[in-house]
Every structure is written in structure tokens, then in C-alpha cells.
């Protein structure tokens, strides 16, 4: 696969116009993830409403792959239940580590299938995963915070 093909139109569109970008209130948890090898950074917030992802907001610096991947991720997870979102995280991660041999499920991954080609460029896989990993961590923290809150309330 050529680099030109890896840089699918969808990726460049999301790089030019990042969805849900910027940091917003309210949020349940905030994390900062860094890719120390290349310096890409993302600060990401997750707001839950019950078991649903109410919002994901973020600010980041990095390459088109990491930026676009984060943008696509927000489109996918906002509005879903946390469980559904984490299942998507897992599916996307598996795709990225598949060395290009896994066929992505377009119905589930939607725009994220554009990153299928990245799996063939091992050096860039971390870029595509940066935002997703940050989301996973932040969601876990937000869930834990909610749980602590409701324990307090129920006492």
C-alpha cells in the first residue's frame, strides 16, 4: 500500500476540520496522553451521563493521523453507552495491530475504517491509537468518579 492511499481523503478531511475539538465543561475526567517517541500530545475530557458518553472534548498537537483519528473517535463514541464505546476501542485497536490483515467492519467503525491502511505502517500505529487510548483511560476514570459519587450519595 502506498502512503498516498494510507492518507485517505477522510483522514485529511478530519485533519483540516477536527470534530468536537476544544476543551469543554462539564466533564467527569480529564487525562493527558503523550507519545514520547514523536511528541504527539492530547489532553482529553470525557463527560458521562449515566452509562452514556455525553461528550468527549480535547485539545491536541500531532500529525494528521493522530489528530484525525481522535476526531473520528469522538464522532463514534459520543452518544453511545460506555460499554459500546469501549468495544469500539477494542475493535479499532485490534485493527491497528493487525498489520493490514484484518478486514474492518464498516458498519461498526464507519469513518475509522479509513485508518485500516495505517496498520501497514508500524511506526504510525501509535499515532492512530493516541486519542483512543486517552478516551479509554478517561472513560474509566469518569466511571470510577461517578461510582464514588453515588456511593457517597447513597450513604
Amino acid at each position, binding site marked *: 500500500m*502506498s*502512503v*498516498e492511499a*494510507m*492518507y485517505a*481523503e477522510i483522514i*485529511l*478531511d478530519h*485533519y*483540516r476540520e477536527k470534530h468536537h475539538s476544544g476543551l469543554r465543561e462539564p466533564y467527569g475526567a480529564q487525562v493527558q496522553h503523550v507519545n514520547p*517517541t*514523536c*511528541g*504527539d*500530545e492530547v489532553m482529553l475530557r470525557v463527560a458521562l451521563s449515566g452509562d452514556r458518553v455525553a461528550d468527549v472534548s480535547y485539545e491536541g*498537537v*500531532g*500529525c*494528521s*493521523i493522530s*489528530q484525525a483519528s481522535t476526531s473520528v473517535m469522538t464522532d463514534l463514541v459520543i452518544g453511545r453507552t460506555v460499554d459500546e464505546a469501549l468495544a469500539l476501542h477494542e475493535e479499532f485497536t485490534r485493527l491497528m495491530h493487525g498489520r493490514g490483515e484484518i478486514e474492518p467492519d464498516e458498519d461498526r467503525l464507519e469513518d475509522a475504517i479509513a485508518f485500516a491502511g495505517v496498520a501497514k*505502517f508500524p*511506526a*504510525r500505529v501509535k*499515532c492512530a491509537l493516541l486519542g483512543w487510548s486517552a478516551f479509554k483511560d478517561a472513560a474509566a476514570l469518569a466511571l470510577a468518579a461517578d461510582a464514588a459519587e453515588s456511593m457517597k450519595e447513597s450513604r
Partner: protein
Amino acid sequence: MSYDVELIRSDFPILSRRVGDYPLAYLDSANTSQKPQVVIDAMVDHYERHNANVARAMHMLGAEASAAYDAGREKVAGFIGANRTEEVVFTKNASEALNLAAHSLGATLKPGDEVVISVMEHHSNIVPWQLLCARTGATLRWFDITDEGRLDLAKAAAEQLINSNTRIVSLTWVSNVLGTVNPIAEIAAQAHAVGAVMVVDGSQAVPQLTTSVTGLGADLVAFTGHKMVGPTGIGALWGRYDLLAELPPFLGGGEMIEIVKMGGSTFAPPPYRFEAGTPPIAQAVGLGAAADYLGELGMADVAAHEAAITSYALRVLQQLDGLRVLGTTSVGPEGRGGAVSFTLATRDGLDIHPHDVMTFLDSRGVAVRGGHHCARPLHERLGITASTRASFYLYTLEREIDQLVEALNYTRDFFGRAA
């Protein structure tokens, strides 16, 4: 002309590799340099015929290995113009050398003492001093830079950056991002005037310039083997002998001792005091061969080639629409290292991230580095998060720069078309 780049290139087996349909244009030598066959062969011969531990093994192989290791040190000492062979301490890389300096020099630092670095340093000349200051309560201060990417000496003077509290000044000789050549002698004089020790990070300078540690004005100079056509796994700290002789050890273990008793130990004189455990023996052999290789080419010629190829690159890169070079854009009288960092944007103003640039360039055979090049504070100071860096060395051809420019053009247009 005696400096024949094509001939020199034939010494480097890796340079004949291809990337798909393209010849490899390796423009990442500030990251690590390639190795000539003689350096590789020297290590092979060592492992195949002379391998043994040094100093403590006195049999035939031990004597051969020791002589080879000592010869490596002698060659390196000669290469940098040291007064004594014992002034060269072998480490695993420049980073260890700088940590050794920070630990040994800094062992007696206390609150109120100040350590001065600059905002253009490589992380390896920042973090050791941050950790030292955290351990001791000393204060870390730093030189800012001017818009041309030079040390801001006026600002430093105004804020009395170097003053009677200063204990250590540690600066890079040549910037790995901007190519700036810093006025080490001038700053060393300021440091010495207040009784401070001058440490120099020579990682980018020693491979490119004729080095005379005695003329430099510094007290300690760190550098690294893999950037000077030598192997990985070895670096060095040069130090004035009388300074080294009074510094406490850093790493403890075999070889650096005089007498070990359970109740306490005494330590060997320099350089051994600072070399705990089995040293990088084969690597010292390789680095010695590298010093010989560079010496035979002649560092004056290497430096002249570096200046010429850098001038050429600066000239053609600046003709490229959307490309902005960081720092100084001319090889002035102060000189300039062979690293050129830049940003690239499409015609409609979209910043193309350096990782994307790098990936595109790679697909067209051109190896550059994208990111903060282990100099995040410098990039932050410049108001950017990353840059693309092309860096040149004694084997770099104009043809490779042309290949770079063509690939950059293509990349910019690809990202532009997507608009």
C-alpha cells in the same frame, strides 16, 4: 579536489540501499551517522580474534584486548586534542556522560547554588540538571535565544544569568535543531570568572568540527560515538585531568576501585574511577577506528564539506514555497552545523505535520526526522510543537538534497490538493 564524496560513499555499505524505486537519501545523520566498512571490520576482527576482558585479564587475548581498548582511548584523545589520554572517560553515550558530569560535579551543590543551561539544549543536557537541582535544592536557570536562534547574550547579561551563585554552566556547542554554533570560549570565560565549571555538550560538534578540547575553554566535554561514524553503545566525557582527579565517582563497581573493603572503598585515578564494570571494549575499538577514519579524511575537509552542503541545502530549501527554516539561514562566519529544521505548509496555509512530512519523504527514499528532536523546550520557545529536520554529513550529496526538495514539493502539493 581531494575530498571525493562519491569515493567516500563507497566506504559505507548502507548508502547503496534503495527504498522502493528510489535511492536512499539518508538525511538523518544528526540523529545517528552511518558506519564505514573499516569501523565494522575493526569490531569483527576484535570479536573473531582478540576478544577478552580488559585490564584484569593478563593472558594473551587479555593483553591483546587491553591494548586494543587502550588504543581506542588514545585515538579518541588524539582526535579531540586532549593533553592526556587519561582525560577521556568512556561512557555508553553522551547522555551518560552528561549525567556523570551532573552527579560528580553536583555532589556538593546546595540551595542557593545555580546551574545554567539554555533553552536550545537537547533533553540530555536538560533533564540531568533538573534531576540534580531536584536532589540538591539548587536552582536551574537558562539562556533564552534570539529570533535568529542564537543565545541571547544581552538578555543574559541584563538578568545576571551568570553570577557569583553559578556553580555549573552547561551548553551545547552546536544545536541539534538550529545548527547554531555557540560561543563556548566566551561563555566559558564568564563561567570561570565566577568560579563555575563549564560543561559542553559536543554531541553535534565533535563529529563535524575540528575539536581541540584544550582550545575550547571548557572543563568537561560530552560526545557520543554513534554520531561520528562510530558504533552505538559508546560515548565519552573528556575532562581536564586536574578536575577529573578531584571529582567523586558516579557509578560504582569493578574496575573503578583501588581497594574494596566491606567497610568502605577507595577509588582508582581517572579515567578508571568513572568506568564501572566491563567497559564497551569492542565499541572502543570501533570508535578508535572511526577517529582514525575521520582523521584520515581530515576534519578540516569534513567541516568544509559540511558547510558547503549546508549552504546548498539552505539555499534550495528556502526557494520552496511554504517552507520556513528555523534559526539562522546562512553559514555565517560563526559557522553553522549541518542540521536544518523547518516547517512546511500547503499553499492554502495548512501546516503539514512533520510526521506526515517524514512519512511522505520516506516513501520517496528520503530519510529525515520529524518531531521535537529531543528539544521540546526549544520548540515551545519557537511557538511550535514539532519540525522536520534534514541533517547532513561527510557522505551527503547535493543530489540527495535535490531529492529532498522534490519530495517536499510533492508532499506539500499532495496535502494542498486535498483541500
